[in-house]
């Protein structure tokens, strides 16, 4: 049951999905669960909505994890976020205010097929598991498949490459389903957050070009506040800035698409570490990594309640 669920180990897809049902059943006042669609292999794409039930037009924050299958710390953080939000509601004034005034849409595993494959077959699988009718290689990079400057610099048009952009934009059912949900709710969704690993960075648009976003000063100060809050936990430093200059240029990314579709604050976290363990971050580091990231996400969400 929920009491025994261990948030300091990595969980398989099946364990995460049954945990979601459990959270939905045991916290009806704060949690709602729904599916935004089906994956390529037909698995449901579950999302948890967190927040006090009040007026229907509350502002909202979207958080997705597990876009790239091998980045296991992502789904671990999404579970951690839900646990912390629910357990600290009415005990922590910041979280109480956030859940009273905002809804959080949390998608613990975006790339369900790929994540399951990384547990059963190839630990370092990255992409989705869609089939290509011309090549034996499978999968599309779900962070190169969005309809924004699709398949341009920083993406590959070769199906066997890890950054393959897909046969066409939103070809992946997972991307199409989330894009449809975000489009439908874009008037209420004020922040889009996507959790990746590893590099210890907080990135914001643009990824596909070296240009400055119109609301740069607001986004930049939100990012500055977030990495400062993160640092306050254990002194871990995260770099922050536009993805194109801080990491590298890439096209078809979710943060560029979210931003271009009207979500004013779009961030991608690249969680620990910087390459000692890489994708094999030990379970002993789940707690500190999630604790510090929790502070950063709360800082971003709190910023939405103020005027910039």
């Amino acid at each position, binding site marked *: 049951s929920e009491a025994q669920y261990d948030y300091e180990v990595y969980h398989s897809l099946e364990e995460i999905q049954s945990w979601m049902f459990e959270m939905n059943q045991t916290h009806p006042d704060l949690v709602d669960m729904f599916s935004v669609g089906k994956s390529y292999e037909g698995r449901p794409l579950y999302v948890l909505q967190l927040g006090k039930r009040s007026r229907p037009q509350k502002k909202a924050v979207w958080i997705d994890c597990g876009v790239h299958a091998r980045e296991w710390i992502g789904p671990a953080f999404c579970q951690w976020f839900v646990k912390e939000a629910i357990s600290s509601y009415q005990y922590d004034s910041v979280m109480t205010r956030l859940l009273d005034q905002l809804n959080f849409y949390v998608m613990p595993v975006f790339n369900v097929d790929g994540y399951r494959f990384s547990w059963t077959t190839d630990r370092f699988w990255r992409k989705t598991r869609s089939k290509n009718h011309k090549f034996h290689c499978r999968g599309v990079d779900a962070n190169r498949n969005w309809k924004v400057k699709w398949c341009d610099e920083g993406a*590959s048009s070769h199906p066997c490459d890890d950054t393959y952009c897909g046969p066409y934009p939103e070809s992946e059912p997972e991307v199409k389903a989330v894009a449809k949900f975000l489009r439908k709710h874009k008037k209420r969704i004020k922040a889009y957050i996507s959790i990746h690993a*590893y590099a210890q960075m907080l990135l914001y648009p643009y990824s596909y070009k070296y240009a400055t976003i119109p609301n740069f000063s607001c986004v930049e100060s939100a990012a500055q506040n977030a990495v400062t809050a993160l640092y306050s936990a254990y002194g871990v430093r995260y770099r922050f800035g536009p993805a194109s200059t801080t*990491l590298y240029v890439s096209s078809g990314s979710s943060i560029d698409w979210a931003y271009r579709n009207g979500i004013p604050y779009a961030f991608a976290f690249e969680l620990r570490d910087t*390459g000692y363990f890489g994708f094999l971050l*030990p379970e002993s580091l789940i707690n500190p990594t999630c604790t510090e990231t929790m502070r950063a996400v709360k800082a971003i969400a709190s910023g939405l309640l103020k005027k910039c």
Partner: protein
Amino acid sequence: YLYNNRYAGDQVFRITPGNDEDVRALKKILGHMKVDLWQPNSASLIHQNATVDVHVNRNDTQGLHSRLKQERIDYRVFISNLQKEIEKQTGYRSSRKRR
């Protein structure tokens, strides 16, 4: 063993090309091997003074060691046996399950 022990002996190299010539040589070396790039996500994104983390199959590790030495490209091995790290990451639970 997890994953049928398929990663036994695989290694992860951390390579730092110091200049454009190193970048060209490294892309050429990696272009002739089947490697799993961890950082950056594709060879086209390799640039000077930015670290390259690459997972190399056990059969190719010796070849990569000698090619990098030959080209005098700065590198080190940051995971010397990938299977062991994988077992460490979640291994204790699966052994507990087996028990």
